């Protein structure tokens, strides 16, 4: 094992992307749709990882930005004729970012558990606006009438709402977001965020105005969540207020904790593990009658992960390695 760490990590990422790209060759439509759903959630999880794992800001209201992206998409596509994919995408990310700006400015005045709760409050605000008013058909949810039309300089290669093109679009988006965040992590900006996570006082003493850095991280994370929301709405053709609910914020937080905080890979791994575990426990070919009780098994698995894997799934190889070294 003389390969440097980053090269090994890079190789793992390349292999993972290659496997995912080849998946439709040997999987049916159901699996492709399932994995497309996971890819979208992985983008959502990555966006939260920037806040929680990289900057140390635990937001419990991240679904607000996911949902805002989705609702913006739905509200722009209420006419039957198609609109530009890129235009709707920009609008979805813009709406999420626009709401994130005041939320970040206000909620970053608090810290710790109080920050968790203020972000929740601002998310609940959006939830009730869409749930209780008639802006977008209230609690019934709203269907997309038109479709976003994917085009490159006038050329329309495919219909993005179909299963396979959507899968590759989502995979491309995930790679782009991952690359962006990886670059960010290595930039001066990313180093500053890491510094804030480890010791904010010290960063301030070193002359960094930490507040604008945190606001910037929050807004970027929100816009990426908006991107995930846009993809989700495009995939489902339907949006409802549950996308904004605290359950959704909780679920995405669970994904990144389960995967392992502090590494981008952890967020992606967590999204895959969370959804695939659900699918596995729901599978009645394996569990028979008990598959109806999948929540029980998922609950115990989560508790087992907490007790045995304090660093998340990402820490599993190191743990096995250590154990092997000790036993051998």
């Amino acid at each position, binding site marked *: 094992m003389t390969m440097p760490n980053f090269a090994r990590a890079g190789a793992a990422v390349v292999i993972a992307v290659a496997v995912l790209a080849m998946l439709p060759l040997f999987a049916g439509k159901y699996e492709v749709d399932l994995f497309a759903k996971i890819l979208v959630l992985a983008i959502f999880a990555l966006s939260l990882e920037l806040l929680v794992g990289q900057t140390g800001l635990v937001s419990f209201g991240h679904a607000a930005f996911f949902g805002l992206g989705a609702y913006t998409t739905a509200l722009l596509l209420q006419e039957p004729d198609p609109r530009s994919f890129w235009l709707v995408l920009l609008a979805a990310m813009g709406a999420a970012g626009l709401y994130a700006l005041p939320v970040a400015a206000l909620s970053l005045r608090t810290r710790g558990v109080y920050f968790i709760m*203020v972000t*929740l409050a601002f998310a609940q605000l959006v939830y009730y606006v869409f749930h209780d008013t008639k802006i977008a058909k209230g609690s019934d949810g709203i269907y997309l009438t038109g479709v976003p039309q994917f085009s490159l300089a006038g050329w329309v290669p495919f219909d993005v709402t179909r299963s396979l093109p959507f899968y590759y679009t989502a995979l491309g988006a995930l790679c782009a977001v991952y690359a962006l965040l990886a670059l960010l992590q290595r930039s001066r900006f990313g180093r500053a965020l890491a510094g804030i996570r480890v010791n904010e006082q010290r960063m301030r003493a070193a002359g960094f105005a930490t507040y604008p850095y945190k606001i910037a991280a929050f807004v970027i994370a929100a816009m990426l969540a908006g991107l995930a929301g846009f993809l989700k709405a495009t995939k489902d053709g339907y949006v409802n207020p549950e996308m904004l609910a605290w359950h959704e914020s909780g679920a995405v937080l669970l994904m990144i904790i389960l995967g392992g905080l502090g590494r981008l890979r952890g967020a992606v791994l967590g999204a895959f593990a969370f959804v695939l575990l659900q699918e596995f426990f729901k599978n009645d070919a394996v569990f028979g009658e008990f598959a109806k009780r999948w929540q029980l098994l998922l609950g115990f698995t*989560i508790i087992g992960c907490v007790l045995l894997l304090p660093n998340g799934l990402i820490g599993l190889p190191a743990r096995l390695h250590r154990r092997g070294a000790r036993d051998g």
Partner: protein
Amino acid sequence: MSATTFLVQCLNAVQYGLLLFLVASGLTLIFGAMNIINLAHGSFYMVGAYMAYALAPFVGQYLGGGFFTTLLVGLLLSIALGYALEWAFFSLLYEREHLQQVLMTYGLILIFEELRSLLVGDDVHGVAAPDWLAGTIPLGSLMTYPVYRLFISAVCLLVALAMYLVLARTRLGMAVRAGSVDREMAQALGVDINFLYRVVFAAGVALAVLAGMIAAPVSSVYPGMGSQVLIICFVVVVIGGIGSVRGAFVAALLVGFVDTFGKVFFQEAAGVLVYLMMAAILLWKPEGLFRQG
């Protein structure tokens, strides 16, 4: 709005607020004294409500029935449950980060929901109030008010008073307060912190179960009732200041009034108001109204 309707709404607000206090006080005690974020607290409320529904036939058969006997049996069971849960799961979490506590207690929510579904099913049930509390009293010439709601408020006030006395006047209360300020120092001075945590946790569970049991006749019993109450209780705890029982009391009444009157005056925006209030209060006092230490 006439004076009588106003009075009715006030009574409703107080009843809702006091009930919230009962659940939130357990949450804030566990949070403050043990430094544990317990997402499963709403599940205990649900367990309580389902106990009120499911225990009544057994109590009727073996113990001669009666509302208070059911309450008592439920409370004893809940203390045992709290004790066992602390021993089996929560005692492993004290040294862990908050986020891991969140993950684990989320797992517990799933398990409780599924066990509830296995044991009692997924139907919505009504629970009857005992006969002697089922009546109404007249208010003014036109309105009446159910006695049972007054009973809820009375029970909650009694519990609040008892909690105040225990925390402020007894050795145990002193140990709890000492433990929440500085765990190591309290331990060094001879407080058996593990025993203390177990007691606090069991008490927290019992409070939530009691709230669920007495709320069952008013709110009916349904799946998912736990998660609904959980978030609003976190709001109460944070507005009041984490760990402060007095803060939880004031915040719970505030939330009760804002929510009840919000529903009267602006139906559409009612859900938003509580959260707007919370955001405003935290921007004014970033550590809640009554943060200690």
